[in-house]
């Protein structure tokens, strides 16, 4: 019942030609075929947001997409956020310093969602941040550390731009 298709995708800047089962979800493709296990699967019905990735810069649920739909697209996962091996993105640093994560399972989806959000909203209010992550469930933090981290990250990124 299944058939294979070849797709060409760029993931975190690296080009892949891959043969994929047409029913393979994008999340499973990233996790199990490319071994990019940083993208997490929490509900497989698009509610929890843990599997959020960026496709051509826009956030998307990788559990609700098929791998074949990304042919010709550029994908960013949590592994592709940091500028380099020894460095972290200001958002990652702010999460660490504001205790924006506990078990860390929702974190990849939070980060990808917020990369897009902070790009479009460089100077957000607390309410803006809360709405931005309203599609990402976290059972550990009560969101307070995450919200503090995002506001802190916005400040850091602003300072970086000014520098």
């Amino acid at each position: 019942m299944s058939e294979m298709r070849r797709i060409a995708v760029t993931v975190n800047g690296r080009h892949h030609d891959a043969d994929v089962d047409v029913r393979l979800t994008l999340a499973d493709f990233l996790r199990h075929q490319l071994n990019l296990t940083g993208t997490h699967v929490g509900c497989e019905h698009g509610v929890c947001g843990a599997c959020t990735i960026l496709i051509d810069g826009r956030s998307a649920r990788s559990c609700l997409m098929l791998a074949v739909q990304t042919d010709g697209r550029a994908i960013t996962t949590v592994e592709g956020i940091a500028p380099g091996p020894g460095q972290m993105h200001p958002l990652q640093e702010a999460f660490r310093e504001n205790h924006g994560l506990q078990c860390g399972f929702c974190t990849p989806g939070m980060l990808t969602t917020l990369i897009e959000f902070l790009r479009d909203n460089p100077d957000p209010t607390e309410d803006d941040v809360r709405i931005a992550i309203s599609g990402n469930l976290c059972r550990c933090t009560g969101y307070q550390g995450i919200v503090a981290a995002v506001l802190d990250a916005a400040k850091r990124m602003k300072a970086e731009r000014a520098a």
Partner: protein
Amino acid sequence: MTVLGNRVLRLEDEDLLRGKGRFVDDIHLPGMLHAAFVRSPFGHAAIRGIDKTAALSHPGVHAVLTRDDLLPYLKNERIVVGLPSPAYRQNRDRPALAGDEVVHVGEPVAVVIATSRYIAEDAAALVEVDYDPLPTIADPRAALIAGAPLAHRDAPHNLLAEFDMGYGDIEAAFSTPGAHVFRESFWQHRGGGHSIECRGDVAAYDAMDDRLTFWSSTQTPHAAMRILADMLGRNEERIRVITPDVGGGFGPKLIFYPEDITVAIAAMIVGYPVKWIEDRREHFVATTQERDQYWNMEIAADGEGRVLGLRGALIHDHGAYTARGVNLPYESAQTVTLPYAIPAYQINVKLALTNKVPVTPVRGAGQPQGAFVMERMLDRVGRELGIDRGEVRRRNLIRADQMPYTKPLKARGGRSVVLDSGDYPKCQEDALARGGWSDFPQRQAAARAEGRHLGIGVANFVKGTGRGPFEAVTVRIGPSGTINVFSGAAAMGQSTKTMLAQVVAEELGNDISNVAVVPGDTGTISMGIGGFNSRQTVMAGSSAHVAAVKVRDKVLAVASHILDVPERDLYIHGNQVMATDAPERAVSLGQIALSVTGTPGFVLPGGVAPGLEATEHVVIDDMAYANGCAVTEVEVDIETGGVKILNFVIAHDCGRVINPMIVDGQIVGAVTHGVGNALYEWMGFDENCQPTTTNLGEYLLITAPEAPHIDIIHHESPSPLNPLGVKGVGECGVVPAAAAIMSAIEDALTPFGVRIAQTPITPQEIVALIAEGRKKKAAP
């Protein structure tokens, strides 16, 4: 600067932020196959036969296993996990896979092992199970009435267990002249754990070495190892259970499940590693949850609002099997009076079997329900007697000068309940002050003049933490100089690695980056109890402290010999031992460790025993009781029934704080969980025991816009029971949350005479209560 007590950033974070964590579904082994379970679609049914033919002929399927296939591997077919208690009236241990009867929707009946999860699920749909549906019992109260449908065909009745708890002369209390007596009935419901990572296992059996390796997203790896050994009749030394990173626990992952033993046996049968990852729908129907309690209570108080006695009965929904024991309602019943000096208490508790998912603890373990009962009854006393709700509590709270205070109750293992320390009235006083209690009436009046309905609520709690008897910790330094810490403690997000690293580094150089912590791997330490009951900082922290002190003493003894400097003139800084007066005279931890590995034919330096290592199991039988007070202000929209939390203050005392950042995170997370329990989470079943909330659209977890900002006040009353002076914190915040919120909603709706005797409460129910209140007021 010391690392203990300071806001130290976490060891766990960098990997998790880079997507380099390793959760159970991130494990890929060569040749690994995938499991999908066939589950009962009925709440109760007989199984007349299972036809695997179609599934087995599906391409990519390696095996389809049912109970009969597992039996040759099982010394014991049942999962025996019930904690000891004389209260049981019947034994309802779970089987690995169902035999000729299923007793809840979601119960595993068969498992398909295939080359991918996709194919395994395709084939699972092809397994034909011939069911004969049987009557179901959904309501635990109805379950206990004679003639009710039986949850199990062979059961004499649906009473799983029954016990009485209490102290004092309850009859005398209620017959005190002038006593005011009030009755209340409560329905309390809590849902599932819903860690964002569901459960999962990877099992690999190495026939050459006769070794079973089992990676599991569990809170209790050593218990899992022992249960596997017991059920399989194997030497426990041939089984290793490893917890990789765990994406949240919240209680249900402390349970050993039918899927766990089935996946282990499947790996032995097919000869390849087998992975099973639970999906969210399975989490709703196969992972344990808390659900329903029905309380009928009666309180007697004197004219000043001093409680004379409290009595009543609790009926608890146990679900279809015993997956942990009677502990959940036991904790509920025991928690009720904890913060207060109440002279007499009596409660009868009955656990009823129903055809639903087994019930076991979720964060808080029945204690939010106990606190809810007490706090709602005190609100009633205050209202009836015209005494401020804060004042009626103050009059009954145990005072600081009464500590330690012995409650005439027994903890589940038989030890006395002794509240070890704390200033409960001061916590309440501070919380009320921060929450603006005294000037709230003005705010409320001003809002009402604008047609807005504000309310304020208060709730105290006392929470038993640090469940004994011990947790194992090994501290070992090898020639690399890394301080390795191994523990039976399990990490599932509570910062356990950082906590242990701080405790150990405090004695060994003050730098947590020199410390590598491995929790939850039975291959590294022989004993362990695991992560639940807010126990690990108390129990593992104490063992880590004592072990680190022993290693430190030896480090200094050997360094003294190597440097020829008296021990009293040495100190450890980072990974070096230095002379106080001559820092150039230094030797590294690695060199010291190397020197005690032994050189053939040579005496060990200073005549010490070999190795730089200590293993400790500090035994602490009594619990450390944390406490606190929550004050919350809400606004209720009387048209929609919507509740907005405007302010939530919690004054909190978990003894000595190891890391304020982490403690705050635990409190905020737990309070938020409690807010969800009060206003959003509901695990529904219909009258046929079919679950009606099986996705995260139907079952509501709180999201960021509804989550209130939590304002925390810290008190630190060190516990005298352990060397660090700590008390547990992980569950505390959840305990008072629903009670405080209902108190506030009721206060907001005073003009309509609304009374709330349940949790959760939905907007629809609030609107209905307002309408009912208006009707009553309008009636002559």
